[in-house]
């Protein structure tokens, strides 16, 4: 009757499964997590930056454009990468390979599956953000030692997207709508949430739109840490953090429901 043993941590077992899968494909993903920041920082930060720095914009307040841009890109890259990781593997587990249904036939339940996958995405984001941050430092674009804390801030930014996208992915039977999420959700956020220029440069009417998106808060928090300006407005940093955590908490609550529902439907 050894089979009666119940795993102490279902979440840990789901995480272990994702790690096992990752071991088979990590080479490609490691390469791209190095390449993306190098390309972006070289093209936008150094290339575009040499134009911008000549224009003496008051918003930059004496910063190099590279130093301004780098933390924004860090947070935005985590968003994109987490959104992808939250959409397709969830669809695969529930619809394509149906491995979540196999897990659900064991003592594992829907909540374990959601939290295990979420924890895995979190670990992936820490890895992506760490690589990115090392490259920022190598580019000489880090203005403060607090940039170490930009790693968890950027990872949280990714997770603030991952949680609600997981909840959405579990309601879909085909990936058709994922394209719309990326094209009309992720890409516009990438462009308009303060990654490339301060949100204050946008027309006043649409600035509030940026405030309700997690990327705006993620970018602002990551940037405040990278530039070392966080001490000047600790209250603001706290608000950014709370918004990110709220997206995560609400997203996970919905994801547990939608994943659980899809598992019971069969």
């Amino acid at each position: 009757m050894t089979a009666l043993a119940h795993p102490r941590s279902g979440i840990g077992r789901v995480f272990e499964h994702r790690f096992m899968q990752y071991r088979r494909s990590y080479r490609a993903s490691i390469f791209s997590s190095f390449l993306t920041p190098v390309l972006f920082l070289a093209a936008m930060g150094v290339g575009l930056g040499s134009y911008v720095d000549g224009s003496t914009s008051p918003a930059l307040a004496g910063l190099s454009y590279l130093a301004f841009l780098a933390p924004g890109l860090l947070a935005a890259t985590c968003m994109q990468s987490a959104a992808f990781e939250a959409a397709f593997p969830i669809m695969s587990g529930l619809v394509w390979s149906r491995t979540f249904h196999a897990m659900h036939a064991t003592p594992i339940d829907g909540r374990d599956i959601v939290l295990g996958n979420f924890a895995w995405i979190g670990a992936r984001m820490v890895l992506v953000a760490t690589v990115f941050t090392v490259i920022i430092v190598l580019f000489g674009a880090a203005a403060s030692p607090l940039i170490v804390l930009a790693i968890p801030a950027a990872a949280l930014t990714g997770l603030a997207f991952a949680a609600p996208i997981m909840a959405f992915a579990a309601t879909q039977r085909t990936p058709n709508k994922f394209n719309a999420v990326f094209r009309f959700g992720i890409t516009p956020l990438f462009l308009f949430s303060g990654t490339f220029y301060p949100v204050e440069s946008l027309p006043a009417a649409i600035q509030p739109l940026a405030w309700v998106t997690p990327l705006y808060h993620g970018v602002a928090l990551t940037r405040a840490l990278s530039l070392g300006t966080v001490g000047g407005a600790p209250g603001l940093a706290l608000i950014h953090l709370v918004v990110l955590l709220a997206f995560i908490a609400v997203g996970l609550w919905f994801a547990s429901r939608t994943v659980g529902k899809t598992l019971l439907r069969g």
Partner: protein
Amino acid sequence: MPDTPSTPLATASAPDLGAPAPASSPSLIQARGLTKRFGEFTAVDAIDFDVAPGESFGFLGPNGAGKTSTMRMIGCVSPLSGGTLQILGLDPEAHGPQIRARLGVVPQQDTLDTELTVRENLLIYGRYFGLSRAECATRADELLEFAQLSERAGDQVERLSGGMKRRLTIARSLINEPDVLLLDEPTTGLDPQARHLLWDRLYRLKQRGVTLVLTTHYMDEAEQLCDRLVVMDKAKIVAEGSPRSLIEQYSTREVTELRFAPGVQETLDGQLDGLAERVERLPDRVLLYADDGEAAVAAAHARGLQPEQVLVRRSSLEDVFLRLTGRSLVE
């Protein structure tokens, strides 16, 4: 078929009846008025059944009869809409994870992780049951042997044939040494050779005392594997018994199949009556139900009937199903 001399699954022995077997009844599974509804549609309509320890129990019926819905409720992954269900003496609603810890499940659709290797699929599955890595490794190797997949252990699952994937799924379902093995259409879609290999493996499990619960729409599968079965049709159980007793009860000892030249069968109205205890007209042939098939053939010839083909065979569950529902099982 190569025979494995050792018994790699010696540990997967009969359920330990001394341990937490249900005190109230000797059934491993007991359903009363079990019902599953999806909106307005009733998939399972108040069925009763019992499965005893060590028994091999089957749900036989056409697609859409409610077999899979029943299996999913037994597997504690689909809530009941009505009635009661006890599995290993426990209530699935309150003790789903505890029950699932003691079940082995072979779903109708493969749910293997195609990104992992054959062996990794077994290892990670054992981890879901809380087994240590060392224990998972030992069992995985035993089960690979049992499923005749040892040589493919390091291959990616994607590259396996359909029959191999099914065998891997069965091996995976045994990693926790389950008290009950649930198999939903275990051989659907496999070629005859792969099916026979799978039946052989299941028969071995049965001989070791593993309780099997399976659904099928194949008569031969039910006859080979089931000690007892229920025939399901349109969400209800229409008959219950051993394959032999069902045949005795609902059919004759032998069946004579007559095939006529195209167009002839339609002209034979009155001439078939009374040739046997029961005469069944199918689109492509006529079935004569009589304990003595040869006598029925002689009677047909005596009436001047000239079938192109004559086959006298033993009655099967297909005949039982036809009798009970007026339809054949596999269209």
